[in-house]
């Protein structure tokens, strides 16, 4: 009998710890499928963050290292400089990447470090129980913005793809979402494109994935997916922000 569908080899059999309705699971699967389909799973080294995905090392079926909070791009840099022919990716949340790890993010990007960053933006600190993230929307209520994020007081959310797209070292930057089937399909294509850019040694690639956190947003999973359409995407428009994969960033 022909197999028409099976679980990707890119994921282990370990049950994930993510909350019901969380979209981390979908993103994990997309990443794992891309690793497998591009034939790099056996050559891949992944870097797990601190945040909800802290135990990603248990889920991705490849060599993995756990980085200190925000330092995943620096850890990935160390790996890639030692093993330039291995496939190296980080998987980071918004607090990890856009708050405590901003310097590591910006500088690995501007160096054109040949790694791929999967950036999961759900506008909140999930693991610690729902505090304001650098990407929390204006007016959004969190545990530490109980009256809604006041931009005059707490500042404005960071648009990571827009910011990084100004840097010469970035080969590919795209923002996608995983709140409906068409978006999920586009997300997978984007991840694949970013991975291919690394395989072709084109430079730094980042895919920002708009993700849902129903638990900490205080919504049902369905409401959360709709909230992405109504609130997140207007502030964080989807699309390609930089594509230098034709020539690569280090081409002379």
């Amino acid at each position, binding site marked *: 009998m022909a197999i028409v569908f099976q679980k990707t080899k890119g994921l282990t059999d370990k049950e994930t710890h993510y909350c019901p309705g969380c979209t981390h699971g979908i993103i994990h699967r997309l990443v794992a499928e891309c690793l497998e389909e591009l034939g790099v799973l*056996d050559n891949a080294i992944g870097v797990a963050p601190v945040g909800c995905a802290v135990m990603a090392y248990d889920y*991705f079926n490849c060599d*993995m290292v756990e980085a*200190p909070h925000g*330092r995943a791009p620096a850890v990935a*840099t*160390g*790996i890639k400089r030692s093993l330039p022919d291995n496939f190296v990716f980080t998987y980071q949340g918004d607090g990890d990447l856009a708050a405590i790890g901003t310097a*590591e993010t910006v500088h690995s990007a501007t160096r054109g470090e040949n790694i791929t960053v999967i950036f999961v933006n759900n506008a909140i600190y999930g693991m610690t129980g729902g505090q304001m993230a650098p990407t929390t929307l204006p007016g959004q209520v969190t545990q530490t913005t109980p009256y809604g994020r006041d931009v005059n007081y707490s500042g404005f959310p960071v648009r990571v793809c827009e910011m990084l797209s100004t840097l010469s070292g970035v080969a590919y930057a795209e923002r996608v979402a995983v709140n409906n089937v068409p978006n999920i399909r586009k997300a997978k294509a984007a991840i694949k494109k970013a991975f291919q850019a690394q395989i072709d040694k084109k430079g730094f690639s980042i895919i920002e994935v708009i993700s849902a956190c129903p638990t900490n947003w205080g919504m049902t999973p369905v409401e959360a997916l709709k909230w992405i359409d109504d609130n997140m995407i207007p502030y964080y428009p989807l699309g390609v922000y930089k594509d230098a994969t034709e020539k690569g960033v280090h081409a002379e």
Partner: protein
Amino acid sequence: MAEKFLMKGNEALAEAAIRSGCRHFFGYPITPQTEVAAYMAKRMPKIGGTYLQAESEIAAINMVLGCASTGARAMTSSSSPGISLKGEGISYIIGSDLPCLIINVMRGGPGLGGIQPSQADYWQATKAPGHGDGQILVFAPSSVQEIVDLVAKAYDLAETYRMPAMLLADGMLGQMMEPVEFPEVEPAVHDKSWALTGTKGKRKPNIINSLYLQPKELEDTVKARFKRYEIIQEKEVMIEEYKMEDAEYAVCAYGAMARIVKTAVVKAREKGIKVGLLRPITLWPFPQKEIAAYGPKMKSMLCVEMSMGQMVEDVRLAVNGSCPVSFFGHTGGVIPSPAEVLAEIEKMAGGAN
């Protein structure tokens, strides 16, 4: 005999690391260790290695973490305030059981402090290089040649015991030129089956991690590490005993400070004082037993440091009341002179005034 070179401590250190198989250096500029980075920047591209100037000390130590996780000999170098920034990464590297080499060319502190020689990071290096229960190997060379010899040793032991090693030097050693030779030593080959290299479809994934959410699991992991520490304390202690055969008094000092003490000891001997020098070469593991054994034989001990008195606590713990232990030191970049140390020795021997 190998060729002799006249080299600065910092440059000899960098060359020794390269000869020990280090091909990956991640750093950030800070006085007084900049020559290490400059030397690496010059040499690494010529031998197919990496010199990468990181955006911060924090990034540099985490690049070391990543690089070390692939089984490569990685290294970073800094000076006191920069080492504080590396504390986070050092703790993670300890918790991940990874070998690496960290250089601290100490300067005066706290805060931005100064840029002159100091030994005020002894506590940081030996007691709490980062958060959590954990140790790193700490070597304290006192000559340029010893820097070279200890770099090779540090890498070897770091890999044997899978833990970070630190070379604790100071601005005086780093800036000083002395004749040095590089022994032809093939780096020892250690098991690296734990390294991240990609599974190549031939093994289960390797995971390098310091997170253990189950308390019992974490305790077991830490205890296993401390078992290794016990072996290290048993086997790897290094100490120089200088003119101790007939000594009635001992001065304890390490690193560059021990050089100054040596001069003072020679002068004190000329004055008839039977004094010797105990120079710990490994600060962790500390030569606890060796110093303890001298306690009952000494009329008194003096500890001299370029700090307000840090190692003196370990000396007092070691002798455990078996002889009096006094302290003399300067801090902030002020270097105790041989004359001052001599005066302290005379005071200890009751021969002053």
